[in-house]
Structures are given as C-alpha cells and as structure tokens.
C-alpha cells in the first residue's frame, strides 16, 4: 500500500461546519422561494393553471327572426361555419400559418393582421380567421386535425335578409360590435359579438340578440381536447313581429325599383306602419358575413346614398302637400272666414315680387275646396299672407312639423318648420314677409320627411289624433298626441283631398280607383329656385321632387300612404300611381281578391316578382344556398358545437312596448 495517505493531518472541521450552514441557508432560501409561489401568489398561479387547461369555445345564439304582421318570416338566420384559430401556442400557430393560409384560401397577410388585431385578447381566446367556411375548408380542417391542431370550426348563425335590398332600411343590418359600443354596453357586449347596426336590428337589438353560450373543455399541452367541463347553452334571441304587411311592402318596394324615393304606408287609426320602403337600397346580406373596407366605403360614398333611409331621413320641401296644413291652419285659426276665396289670374304680386301659379292660365275664383283640388298656388299665397308665418308655424308645429314622429327606428330626422324665431336663432336674420309666401305652398326653408307627411295628414284627417308611427306590432296602443281638429275642418280637408283624385280637374285624377274612395294631395317641390335651376341646367338631381299623400276610405280612413319620388317632377304622374297601387293592394287583399303571399321560414320570398328578382340577382352576390351549408350527418364534423335550436320559432308574437 502506498504511503500517500499515511501522513495524517487533522480535518478542517471549521470549514466543514461552514459548508453545513451554507447548505442549510441555501435550502432555507429555496424554501422561501416555494413559499412565495405556493402560498403568497398561489391564487395567481392557480388562475394561470386553469387558463392553461380550459379552452372556451363560444356557442353562438341565433338572433330572433323578424315576422310580418301575419307571422310571415321576413328576416331569419341560416347556420354556417366560421373557422376559428386557437392561439394557445403562438409558436405552433406561426409555424403553421403558411399551410393554413394555403388550405383556407386566405392571404397570409390577412391572417397576420387579424392575429395582430387580437393581441389584446387573452391568448386562450380563439379568433375567427374566416367567417364563412366553405365545404372545402371544412374538409381541409377535418383532414388535418392531427397536423394542424390549431383550427376549429365554430357554428354560427348568419342573418338572412330578403335579397335585393328588400325592406333593407327597415330591417337594417348587423355587424361586429364596435369598441365604442362595447364600452357603452357596460360589459354586455364582448368583442366579436354580432349586434344590430342599423334599422330594427339596432332598435330592438336587446330583444333580438340572444345570449351566447360557452362550451368549456379540458385540453392538454398540445391543445388536444381530453375532457369536457360544463356547457352553458345559448339563449336564442326572441323574434319580433312587425306591423309590416308583406304584401303591401312588396307592392311598395316594387313600385320604387329603379327610382329614388320612399313609400310609407300607415294605419292612421293606430300608427301601425304597414309598408315602408326606400330606394336606392343596399343588400344587408353583404353585411351578414364581414363587409370589406372597400365595400363599406363604396356604399358610404355612393352619390345615390343607398344607406340613407329616405322614408325617415330625406328632409325635403313638401311642395303642395303642405297646402293641406295651410287649409287646416286657416280653418282652425279662423283668421279668415271659412268661405274665404281668392281670384287666381295665374300669378300674384306680393311685396313687389311676382309669384306665379303652377298653372299660368289661372284658376279663376277659388275657395279652399277648389284650391286643394286644383292645388291653386295663388289662393295659398294670399292665405299665407293673411295668416302670417307665426300662425302657420304654430299650426304646422302642432301638427308635427319640425319634430320627429318618434318612429321606432334609429336616425329619424325632424325636418324643418321655419318661423321668425327659427330664422333668428339659426341665421341671426330677420324674417322677410316674402318668405311666408313661399312657405305657404311648401317651398323655401321648409323640410319634411315622407313619414312625417303621412303622420301629419293622418292626424289631421282623424280629427287631430296623432298616433306615433311604429313598426313593432303590439297589443298596447302606441303613444298618441291629441291636437283636436274640428269635424268641419276635417270634412273640408277630406272633401278637398277626395276631390283631388275624384273630381274632374283634380291634380290626382289620373290615380282614380274605381270603387275605392282614394283621397290625396299631390306635390311637386322644387329642389332649388327656378332661377337656380336655369343656371344649373336641367340635371336629374335638380328635377322637382314628386310627392303624393293619399288615404282611403274617405270616412274613417284605414290607410294613409306617403310617397316621395326624388326627381319625379310631378306628384300626379310619378308619386300618385305608387300610392294608388299600395292602396289598391290593400283593398284587393281586404276584399279577398288576392290571396296573401305564402311565406315559409325561408327569407327568400317565393313570390318575388320578376322585376325584383332580377334586381336581387344583380345586387345579391352571395348565393342563397343555405341548405348546402348544413352538414346533415353530424359525424362529419365531430367537434362542432351543437346548434341550440335548428330554426328559431316564428310563432310567438312579440309583446314588447316600443
């Protein structure tokens, strides 16, 4: 044995002890580290662990359908699939992106943008990278479950509107909730929610919108589902029943095709809007998926302004239709006697200026009845001068001018009723008496919306009972404003309007309906003054706007129709026939001459008239092939969220107070 270990030194006990203490010290330090993680911050890490293991996939609630007054479905949903990208593992996602983009036929750039936009979201929340999955996309996802585990299918409901912009301004459209809306909602909306953006979709969004459910499942570290947790079922939105009569709506829409204007038909007894159309229109189906920036810009910047709901937003001079209000003001104020009459030579001079009658030949001796029937301007010039602007303004204001009607649609405009005070307030200028003369025939600064005219004249002919127009069918009566008008006045006005259509020489006599007591008033309103028109040249946009407001029957009217055709020039030829058609359709139906259109749960009306169908085919790019979008065999899509209900139930009528 070697000698190297023989010579013994004593062991460095002190240093060994130091090492012992160091070990105890370091261990204590490490234990402190565990204490901090496991005791102090335990809740935080427990949350993170939960977030790791649980994946939440929303179950989309279908929106409530929109039914017409007889329960026919106008707007409903069709099931569709969106492609979800699960972002739990960003590195994996990044690696698979080119494959995904290729397989789903979307640009890599597009997906990247969406990923960037979603960086603020918690990473366990999946994002929709393709809202409308084709059958090919579904095959792609199914066949690549193993190697591309980050894709998932989400069953969604798409809104299905009638094609071709039919009733688009009434129904409105839906879209992804904006960040401002999320903030305003106080936590009710979450990013990605689909909410109503316009029209009834927006007005009754709370009622129509369901509550999305959530399916929570346990996933392992590679994102594979290994178990299910609780599932919150979606609560479908409730349907709403509208006052709209589909048959009348169809007539109104068809009459406006290719024109620029609006039709509003109201039951003056209760304010129920039975038809409401505006053209040019847009296809809300375009919004149902995801509208591109360009499409939106095109719609927004279109000079024809298809997004404008002319029925409630077009504020234009009413022209001669205003003479009904003038006559009412005259008879009610008693500022001039009821038999007030004027000789009309074809023009008259006021304040040093000559005001022409539309008929240069003149109307001879004119009383109020004849003035309405022949729409004599000179009579109303004189009347205007007699009444004065403030008296006109007082009555017009009380009959609804310059105020919103309160219709249950967002964005209604109030119109303008000028007065001395108004001019002072808005322009800081004095009112010129000459302006009163223009206002007396519905020209000048005066502006109304089509719905306002229907509302006002509907109120006058029912003795001053102004029912708030509404689109939601309800058992309870809608709010009513009473401004009592004497029976004598109502009779005189009604007889005058009856004469317009039914007396020889009446301005609307072309629209006479045999067997139906159609009453009405034509209007042709200048967009700018005649002098301005001469300067600008006769362009379409500057042609006179044609108006007609008609109702039937003479006693106890049931329907009042307000028609605007922009650039239609003559109320009698451009607007009155439309009102006549609507009223005729109303009577045909009432008298059982025409069977109502049968509408199934399909939003595409089977009886779309050819002209409208052609328009639909042109405008509606999206093929309406809903059935093909639903796999009949659920096994082909094993992990898709189950639909809550196959189709929304259209039967229960909405009993909601607007």
């Amino acid at each position, binding site marked *: 044995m070697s000698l190297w270990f023989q010579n013994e030194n004593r*062991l460095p*006990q002190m*240093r060994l002890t130091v090492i012992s203490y160091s070990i105890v010290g370091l261990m204590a330090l490490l234990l402190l580290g565990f204490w901090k*993680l496991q005791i102090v911050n335990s809740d935080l890490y427990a949350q*993170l662990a939960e977030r790791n293991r649980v994946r939440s996939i929303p179950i989309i609630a279908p929106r409530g359908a929109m039914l017409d007054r007889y329960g026919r479905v106008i707007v409903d949903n069709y099931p569709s699939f969106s492609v979800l990208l699960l972002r739990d593992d960003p590195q994996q996602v990044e690696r698979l992106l080119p494959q995904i983009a290729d397989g789903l036929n979307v640009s890599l750039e597009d997906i990247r943008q969406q990923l960037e936009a979603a960086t603020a979201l918690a990473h366990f929340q999946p994002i929709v990278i393709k809202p409308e999955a084709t059958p090919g996309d579904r095959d792609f996802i199914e066949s690549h479950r193993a190697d591309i585990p980050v894709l998932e299918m989400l069953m969604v409901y798409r809104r299905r509107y009638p094609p071709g912009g039919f009733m688009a301004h009434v129904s409105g459209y839906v879209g992804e909730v904006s960040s401002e809306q999320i903030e305003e909602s106080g936590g009710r909306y979450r990013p990605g929610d689909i909410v109503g953006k316009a029209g009834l979709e927006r007005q009754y969004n709370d009622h129509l919108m369901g509550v999305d459910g959530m399916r929570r499942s346990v996933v392992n570290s590679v994102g594979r589902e290994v178990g299910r947790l609780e599932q919150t079922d979606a609560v479908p939105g409730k349907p709403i029943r509208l006052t709209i009569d589909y048959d009348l709506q169809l007539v109104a829409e068809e009459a406006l095709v290719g024109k620029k204007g609006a039709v509003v038909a109201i039951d003056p007894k209760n304010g129920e809007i039975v038809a409401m159309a505006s053209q040019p229109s847009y296809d809300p189906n375009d919004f149902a998926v995801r509208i591109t920036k360009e499409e939106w810009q095109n719609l927004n910047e279109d000079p024809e302004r298809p997004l404008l709901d002319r029925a409630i937003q077009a504020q234009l001079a009413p022209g001669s239709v205003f003479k009904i209000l003038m006559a009412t003001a005259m008879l009610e104020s008693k500022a001039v006697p009821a038999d007030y009459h004027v000789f009309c030579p074809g023009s008259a001079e006021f304040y040093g200026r000559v005001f022409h009658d539309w008929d240069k030949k003149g109307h001879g001796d004119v009383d109020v009845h004849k003035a309405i029937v022949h729409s004599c301007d000179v009579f109303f010039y004189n009347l205007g001068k007699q009444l004065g602007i403030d008296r006109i303004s007082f009555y017009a204001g009380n009959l609804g001018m310059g105020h919103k009607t309160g219709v249950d649609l967002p964005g209604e405009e109030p119109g303008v009723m000028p007065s001395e005070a108004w001019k002072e307030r808005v322009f800081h200028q004095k009112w010129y008496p000459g302006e009163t003369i223009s206002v007396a025939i519905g020209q000048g600064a005066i502006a109304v919306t089509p719905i306002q005219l229907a509302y006002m004249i509907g109120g006058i002919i029912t003795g001053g009972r102004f029912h708030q127009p509404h689109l939601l069918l309800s058992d309870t009566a809608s709010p009513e404003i009473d401004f009592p008008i004497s029976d004598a006045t109502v009779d005189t006005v009604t007889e005058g309007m009856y004469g317009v259509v039914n007396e020889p020489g009446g301005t609307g006599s072309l629209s006479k309906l045999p067997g139906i007591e159609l009453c009405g008033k034509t209007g042709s309103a200048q967009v700018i003054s005649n002098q301005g028109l001469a300067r600008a040249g006769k362009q379409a946009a500057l042609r006179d706007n044609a108006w007609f407001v008609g109702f039937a029957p003479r006693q106890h009217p049931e329907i009042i129709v307000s028609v605007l055709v922009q650039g239609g020039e003559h109320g009698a030829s451009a607007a009155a026939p439309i009102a006549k058609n609507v009223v005729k359709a109303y009577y045909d139906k009432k008298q059982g001459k025409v069977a109502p259109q049968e509408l199934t749960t399909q939003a595409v009306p089977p009886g779309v008239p050819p002209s409208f169908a052609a328009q639909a085919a042109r405008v509606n790019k999206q093929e309406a092939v809903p059935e093909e979008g639903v796999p009949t065999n659920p096994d082909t899509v094993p992990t898709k969220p189950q639909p809550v209900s196959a189709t929304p139930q259209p039967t229960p009528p909405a009993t909601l107070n607007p």
Partner: protein
Amino acid sequence: MNEGSGIRDYDLWLLAIIFGICGIGVLEIWSATHASHLAGMHVKQLWWIALGLGLMLLLSRLDYHSVLDKAPVLYLIGILALLAVLAVGHTRYGAKRWLPVMGEFLQVSEIAKLIIIVSLARFFAEVRTERLALTDLFKAAVLTAVPIGLILLQPDLGTAMVLVPVVAVGAYLAGIQWKHAAVMVLAAALMVPIGWHHLKPYQKERVTTFLRPEEDPKGSGYQILQSKIAVGSGGFWGKGLGHGSQNQLGFVPVRYSDFILAALAEELGFAGVFVTLVLYTALLLRLIQNAQHAKDRAGMFLVMGVAAILGFHVLVNVAMVIGFMPVTGIPLPLMSYGGSAMLFVFLALGLVMNVRLRRFVN
C-alpha cells in the same frame, strides 16, 4: 481493517433518507406518467434503484484507499472514455453523450464525475500543507479543466458545470488562500463573455430567457413559466397525487425528470416540497457529518466531493424549478428518472459508505 463489517456499521440514517427520497421520486414518476404512453416508468426506476443499491453495497466493500490508489489510472480511463464518446458516441437531442453498454446507453460523463471525485480526493489528500499553494491550486484546476473541456465538447454544459463545485469545495477544504480564491472568481467572471461566444444558440437562449423571461413568454421561457405555474398552483396541500393539471396534461416539461419537483410541488403542495427539501438537507448534512468523522483527509475529500456534486445538483435543480436559475438540464438526484444518473448517485454514495465503514482508526 473491518473486513467483516456488519449491517449496523452502514449509515442507516443515510440509507433511510435515500429510501425516503427515492420513494417520493418513484411515487411522483408514477403520478406523472401513469396516464400517458410513458406508463410503467416508475417500475423501471425501481429496477434502477435496486441495481444502484447493489452497486453501492459492492463498492462499499472495496477499501476506498485501494480505489484512491488507482486514481491516476482511473483518471486516464475517464479521459479516454470521454474521448471515445466524442469519437463514436451515440447522438441524442443533438449531443453526443451516450456510449452503448450492454444494450443500454450509458452516459459516460456520469462515470467521469465519479472519476473526478476520486482523482481530486487523491490530489487534495496529497497536499499536506495547511494552506493550499498556488501551484497546487493550479494543478487541481488543470486536472478538472481537461474533463470539463471534453464534456463541453459533447456539448453538455450542465454536467461540465457540475464538476466545478467538486474542485471548489476541495480547494476550500484544502485551505485555499483568500486572495487566490478572489483571483479565481475574477478569472471565472472574465471567462464568462469569452465562454458566451462558444455557447450553443439554445444555451444562449436559455440564459437570456432566464434573465428576461417576459421577452419571450411562450418560447424557451415557456418551460420555466409552466414550471412556476405548476408550483404556484399547488398551494399548501397540493392538488393531490395524480390530480395536478399542469402535470397530468403535460404542461410541465419533462415532468418525470428534470422538472419532477415541479410536478411534486403541484400535486403535494408546499407540504410535500418542505418534506422533500428537508430530506435533501438531511442527506447533505449527513454526508458532511460522515466527512467530519472520516478516518483521514483522503476519506474526507472523497465524501465532500460527493457532497459537493450532489449538493450542486439539488440546489441548481430546485432553483431552476422555481425560476431562480436558467434551465440547465441538471436532474434532481435520486428523484429524477434516469438510469445513468441513478447509478452514479448510488456509486457515489457507495464511496461515502466505504469511508464510513472505515472511519475507526485501527
């Protein structure tokens, strides 16, 4: 010599502690793998433990003086084995670390660790001065640097680092002078930037991730984050064996090996961690106690070499699990799954037993 030393001459406390730690380890390996394709791993681990115990007993019968006697030869064999690995070794995970021995792949650096312990014990025992001379310090450094260099070439930074505390503790016990120690530390500090250039990209990434985990929460910081989530979510009593979501769903990386303590912390909570760390502390203190009672300096250096290497393993691994240290790939001795590592630890403990059996000066 006590050739016929009985069972009572063994360090029964040390054995009890080892069994305790191994038991917890097997339990947690079972829990971490029973529901996966790795099921049955704990049984394999039991076999490794049995084999290790056998080797430990075998090694303890051999007088450590005769082992130390052959230190130079062993050292040469170790160096040759490391060279052999580099030449013909089996590559796994991008590193050449394995030599095929009897159907299993043996991690040669584990044997090299043992040989370095023995060689340094022999070297420091021969230094008889009260204070460690600079030349001797230099020799010891070179003795260690050669195998470290070879292991770094594999590359295996973790194992290479593990050798440093052996020479550091040895030098400290051999009476290193403070100024020398200071210079060494300074030199090491200067080596860091040079060494940085030679790190593999994945190693650099691990270090930067450790220093700034928030910059890459889902990249390589992912492992540490998931480990911390597992530990933290365990709370005081844990989620129960087999019920840790981080563990069972595979969020904890290599949960049966390097991160086994994270899996344990999740399922058995702070209580389980406390027991485990107390056991490890007891193990290390027991080793030091054995060193204090060694018959000679050679025995003491041998035991302390083992203590240094095991202590370093434990501290670095535990620190990594809670995010105090970067991911280094250093397993937790006696608990992490792995044949070579297990055999090394038992052989090293065999050396300790050996020293204890011969602690009484005859």
